[in-house]
């Protein structure tokens, strides 16, 4: 992996975790939804380069359990 790509991935990982943390504190549904989309896209960006963290983004609800953490309404 080139130094440039390694740096890009490091930044993407930081953005991903920052977005997850920020969404956890967000009370406005509209903004939480924006962050939910960002988190999905960042997870996918990592997946498409083979450096994903888990099968799905953090915050996906469990079966039969409501979970407003993803920002969907």
């Amino acid at each position: 992996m080139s130094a440039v790509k390694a740096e890009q991935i490091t930044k993407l990982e930081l953005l991903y975790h920052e977005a997850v943390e920020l969404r956890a504190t967000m009370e406005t549904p509209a903004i939480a939804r924006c962050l939910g989309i960002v988190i999905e896209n960042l997870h996918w960006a990592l997946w498409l380069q083979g450096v994903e963290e888990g099968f799905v983004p953090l915050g996906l609800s469990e079966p039969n359990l409501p979970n407003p953490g993803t920002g969907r309404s």
Partner: protein
Amino acid sequence: MASAESSHWNLWAETLNREALDALHMRRLKLVLEYAYARSAFYKEYWQRVGFHPDSIQNLEDFKTRVPLTDKSDFLQFQEDFPPYGKTLAVGEFDVAHHAETSGSTGIPLRIPFTDYDTERYGESWVYGWWALGIRPTDSFYFAFNWGNYAGFWSAYWGVRRLGAKVYSGGGQTTEDHVRNILRLKPTVLLSTPSFALRILEAAQNLGIDLSTSSIQYTYHAGEPGPCSLSSVRRKLDAGFGAISGELLGIAEVDAVAPGCRIRQGVHMSEMSNFSWSMGADGQEVAEGTIGENVVTTYANSAQPLINYRTHDLVRAFNLPVCGCGCTWRYLDGVVLGRSDYMITVKGTNVYPSAVENLISDVSGVSPHFQLILSRRGAFDDLLIRFEPDLQVPRDKWEGVGAEVIRRIKEVVGVRLGAEVAEPGSLPRTELKAKRIVDLRGDEFRRELDRQQGGQP
């Protein structure tokens, strides 16, 4: 800097060597197994019942041989018992963002839940094929498709959004309206089933309009055998629209699993979103290039995971592609060659109607409008081919075309079938999948291969 001049949508991913792809799959398959075991009551109960645990998988060979197979019938049963999705749902209802259904062409429609993220990943698989053909974010897509519950072209819509191109909806229009809309809106890409694209060409011809001079530069198809499967369909679409036609193999409940190869003799499995292997009738993996059933595990459906899922599509697959296009992803030569659950025996010979379908379309003088009529004659299945000749074939030559169809099938399949000529325009046209196979047999005569194999629950 992102560039429309890039040769690939994702160069790194599309040119990984087999060793690297397999290592990536191994890591991801373990993630999927752990995810399904932790979240899906269906998988947990099924695997516990047959004595399987995800921890027992150390390599791809383990995965292929130890992970129990799944089949559409498992999911259909659970959905019927506990609607809408049964115990197969791996997320809360809250996170189901889109509900789709299969077309039901082989029975009861299957309900398919998608999370928002699933739709993004599903759409991505289309883009690889479009990009390989030359389609770019500056293009505009006309959807000759009514926006029902059918998953296929919804996923293409997600793909266009992913590509960043423009969408023109053709929902709720007549065939003639589609022709006029193409002239009025000037899209550069037409999306439809191949048979409906041919119907649009017929409608244009009746209106005295030549679509080969229209704005359409590409046509792209799914839902039935298209330009990468059938050379006659490719020739007609290319000539009729004055464009380049392409094809994607999609499996509604799984993913847009295999976007078209740019050489247009087959498709490549979308390996960022799926792992697949070919299984013989004995349940074992078949050798490279040998026809077997495509068994798929998708990374694109987290709402209803599909693991070691039997597609019943018979494919000739190459993990080291032989097409020469440069993409390293698993190559399906000729796309789908037949269906493992749709084999009939005619005069003692096993015949796959889909394979006959492929053969007929290659006979000169046969139009893309034909039917295979399956019936029961005494103790044996029988198959009659009913076809419309091409419009330019004079009536006195029709019999000769029929004889050539019979000869060609006898030569390749080894059995003499009947052929019947139908008047041009007399066979049914549809917007979705062309109903080419008409099965008049009772249910008791329909065979399914080894349904009991592989530890079905």
